[in-house]
């Protein structure tokens, strides 16, 4: 379990990172918290020619509230979310999902943006970003661009990022006081990737539920105007609509059952 040979570049500036990616494209991988990349390197599932370490780039570790959103720099650690002022009232969904993201030890090293870039269909942070209508700021030698969360995730470990792009930051909108959020997850063990996770949101645009762990990307479904007594039918339709499959951890039938159960619980909570 030793990586294949690669060149290690410790970037000093954002421009350095962009330059390396511009030159090497898909043959370069960005290293931040290393919670996904390092095991993949060690198991030789990933064999980049270049690993560009961005942890020394100044200011990339920023995490702060700016205007109407939480700004999260590329190297900000997941556990830093716990230190955001009024997280529970201003970012209720992040607050509820945080304890489900890996373990304390992995959160201390793992980065928020790293989880978004990795795009594991069962991970909590991509689900939150989609449910909260967040945004990704991509950087490349060609410049910067912003992508909405729902347009960003394209498949299992596949995103809208081009080979020469990396995520410089992500933005999670601040909740309005009247918005309601609920999060539920079922995994085999504490800290595992979700078998199914669900987040329900009720805001002034309506009601929606986002489901993780089932389709290749977080799946968002609107339930505008939903009443409590319709929840049962609504979640049954949702479960049937999703691409539920069997794997080692859960049968397709269990996934549908969990979608019904978790979507129902979260919807009830935001409608109550």
């Amino acid at each position, binding site marked *: 379990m*030793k990586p294949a040979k690669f060149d290690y570049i410790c970037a000093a500036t954002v421009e350095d990172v962009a330059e390396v990616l511009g030159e090497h494209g898909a043959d370069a991988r960005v290293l931040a918290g290393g919670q996904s990349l390092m095991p993949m390197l060690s198991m030789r*599932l990933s064999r980049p020619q270049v690993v560009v370490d961005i942890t020394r780039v100044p200011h990339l570790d920023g995490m702060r509230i700016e205007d109407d959103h939480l700004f999260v720099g590329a190297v900000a650690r997941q556990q830093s979310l716990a230190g955001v002022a009024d997280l529970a009232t201003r970012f209720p969904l992040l607050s509820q999902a945080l304890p489900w993201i890996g373990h304390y030890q992995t959160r201390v090293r793992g980065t928020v943006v790293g989880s978004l870039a990795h795009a594991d269909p069962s991970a909590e942070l991509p689900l939150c970003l989609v449910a909260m209508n967040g945004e990704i700021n991509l950087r490349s030698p060609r410049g910067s661009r912003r992508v909405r969360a729902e347009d960003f995730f394209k498949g299992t*470990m596949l995103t809208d990022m081009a080979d020469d792009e990396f995520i410089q930051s992500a933005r999670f909108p601040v909740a309005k006081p009247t918005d309601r959020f609920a999060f539920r997850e079922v995994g085999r*063990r504490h800290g595992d990737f979700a078998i199914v996770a669900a987040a329900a949101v009720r805001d002034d645009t309506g009601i929606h539920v986002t489901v993780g762990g089932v389709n290749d990307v977080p799946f968002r479904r609107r339930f505008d105007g939903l009443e409590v007594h319709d929840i049962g039918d609504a979640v049954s339709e949702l479960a049937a609509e999703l691409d539920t499959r069997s794997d080692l951890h859960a049968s397709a039938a*269990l996934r549908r059952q969990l979608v*019904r159960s978790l979507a129902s619980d979260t919807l009830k909570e935001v409608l109550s």
Partner: protein
Amino acid sequence: MNSDTLNSDSPRIEDGPLVTGRGRFMDDLPVSVRTAQMAVFRSSVAHARIARLNVDEARLLPGVLAVITSREVMAHTAPLAVGIRVPVECWPVAVDRVRYVGEPVAVVVAESRYIAEDAVDLIEVDYEPYEPVMSIDHALKADAAILHDKLGSNLCSDRSFCYGEPDAAFEQSDHTVSVDVLYPRNSCTPIETYGIVADYDAHTNTYEALTNFQGPFSIHTVVARALKVAGTQLRLKTPPDSGGSFGVKQAQFPYVVLACVAARVAGVPVKWIEDRVEHLTASVSATSRQTTLRAAVSSEGRVLALDWSQVEDVGAFIRAPEPATLYRMMGNMCGAYDIQNLRIRNRIVMTNRTPTGLNRGFGGPQVYYALERLMQRIAVELKLDPVDVIRTNLIRSEQFPYRTASGGLYDSGDYQLSVDEALRQGGFGELVTRRNAARREGKRYGIGTTACVEPSVSNMGYITAVLTPEERAKAGPKNGAISTATVSVDPSGSVAVHVASVPQGQGHRTVLANVVGDELGLDAAEITVVTELDTTRDGWSIASGNYSSRFAAAVCGAASIAADRLRLRLTEVAASQLNVRVDEVRLIKGAFSCADDATRAISFKRVASTGHWAPGTITGDGPPPLRETVFWTPPELAAPDADDRVNSSLCHGFIFDFCGVEVDVDTGQVTIDKYVTMHDCGRVLHQGMVDGQITGGFAHAVGAAIYEELAYAQDGSFVAGTFADYPVPTSMEIPDPVILHTCTPSPFTPLGAKGVGEGNTMSTPVCLANAVADALDVDDVQLPLSPTNILKMMNVAEPETSTPAASPGAFASRPIHGGGSVTVNATPLKIWLMLLDPQTLREIVPGCHSVDRVSGTDFVAHVRFGVGPVSGDYKVEIGLFDLDEPHSASLVGNATGALGNGSGEGRIELKPVDKTQTEIVWEYGAHAGGRVASVGSRLLNGATRIVMNRFFEALGRQAQDEGSPSGAEPGSDNEPETGLIGRALDRLLKRGDS
């Protein structure tokens, strides 16, 4: 020594280094500067003939010292011996054929592990696949593929045993109750994996191996025979610390042989540290067992006879010490119950799964899962209280020592008292109230109970029960269980203890310091304990090592005998120096003194050093009292007799467990509300250690019962290669059990102690299963009690929906499957020609290096597949058939590469939409094996979909480049994007998916 416990609160002396990062584990120890590193090239398929193995490129890589294949291994070794006479050769590397995923095929020795793994990647192998045999049922089928041709079937042993008069009992009984259960594969997964440093001295033809092997040291003989040297020419040493084993590290002996050969061929010392994926995939597993157990029962619930039919899956080879898992419990097949009529049929089959070996519980979990499920079924079917059924059948206290039907000799116990105390102290009545209240609230709450006899200190002869009495007579008797301990004094009068046990974190040094200190009137802190073993220097025997929970009962016993002998000799010296009779000398708190005048005293150190400094002053026979080595074996461990009766273990502890669990009907999760475990393990030598063993065994059992399974796909791929996919529970999932004790000291062990290390791995899985059966009111329970299995057991219909059920598709039975469609601007014929043209394919397949047509409809391509950060190079072979130009074609494909292999089939249809547009519809089913399946099965469907989509996207783009641009299908709301697949396309694909 008459108290029930001894120094029960003394702190562990092992922990200082361990909690400050100063442990001396295998990989911490210094090695010679010449030492090279070994890496293993392993089979990525379950069952195949090795058609071609090419290690030339690996050999040429700079830094590589040697590449060793079956040729070198066979030149220097003999097959690994096994205690059953069957025409099955077991080598430490695959010879001509691979029989399980992870089986070593070749090893590389290089200057560093990095280079060694680079070289492993350069090894090329072609497999001709055989049908994989992945279950016990399959192995027994008449038309199943046969793993070992010379054997003629997959059944390598079939023995039947009859004790008492079971037929008469079944005829006369009021009821027959039976269970049919399958115990799945799991492992106790030590934190530290296997590790070996091997060396070969050509001048003396001597091998030396430092390894965290755990025993039994009977395996030393197996390794020496395999290496074709005398036992004394194999020096086996163990490191000071070992990071857990639970039996598992017994099975690294094939790698010891391999590393020794590697050292010999490479001409340098060779080091190998197993990695986690290797460990989970191919180290060892507990056996899986299919059991049908029938009981003849009276209306009162009294069991009059048992009829066992057990089929054991030992994996691809029967490997030493198997079939021990199946025979370890031979003396206690009736558990804690007084049942004298017994029939047993034991069969052993081989399957394309990792070979099995020692694992905590070793045979107990499999036996008690059947026996205690049966006891629960008796209660349910006869409408009796489960606790009453247990009580009715328990052996009574006045029956001890109790001879079981199959020859076991239970040493001591008061089972009724233990059950009564457990129910009283554990609050059973309150638990029943709690269950009833929970049920009134609509919850699925159940109570489980179980009673077990925990055997310890194995009879080294029990395994010969697999042989017929005639075969045994021919081979000569095997019996006993020698434990070895040395207690010595040095010239300063300090005391040291050495034992031929190999602790893996249990705290042997603490307990031995207490036991010997207690004998010699010294503080534990004054005793130095050494537990490393060196077979050339230390006293040892075949039973040496740490397994079958033999430490407290046998090893501590031997140490106490050695200390006692030394004390008697030193007392003689003290009597002489004090000028009194021996019986007038007392040894208290570090001094020998006169019984009637405590002021007349000499220090222990002074007396103990006399033998070194003034041996001439010591009178009496024999050498001066410097060192006592004891080889102790209990006479109760006799060889199996002519009627196949065998006392398989020396000690038999008693366990009674009960628990309350709640099953969440929405999520399928099982929550352990309360767990009570009552143990009678004889005299407790150290309360903290005993409770630690119980807690650890319980934790492993919760894993086995609810979480873990060494899972394989149907095609034989191993799919649980990381701790993400082999979910060992953590402290967050494991509740604290309530631990209770009773004590009936063993009359057969020097200290009255019995083993206690494995009991809960035997009692807890079935106790939890019984509770789940009670909660769900179901007859059959399937381990592990995972949400998926729980949901299956509940068998609840899904709600009807207006969304039509997705068509399962032609390939839905494949673990990876899917399909999609896309409309492109080209005629079917044009697309057809593109699909059949190597040049076009090379241009449009992302990451494609080459495509060659090997025949009219067969292609070979070299492609780099990548999804996100994961990528690898593959050789892809595709064959087309059922060609209906230009409408449809079927294809089969195989891909092989460093990350693993895959094979699949698919179908493509080209449907003209209008004159210029064609809809391409595809469907596929596949499976994947090798590393990518072992560690990433969760993501394979999504990743495959991406690869397929990219191909057709590229095809569409290419067709479009040559024609006018085509929009997305009408009705979609997004234009296709450049670069990666557009959202519209993505949706279309999803819709086509099942």
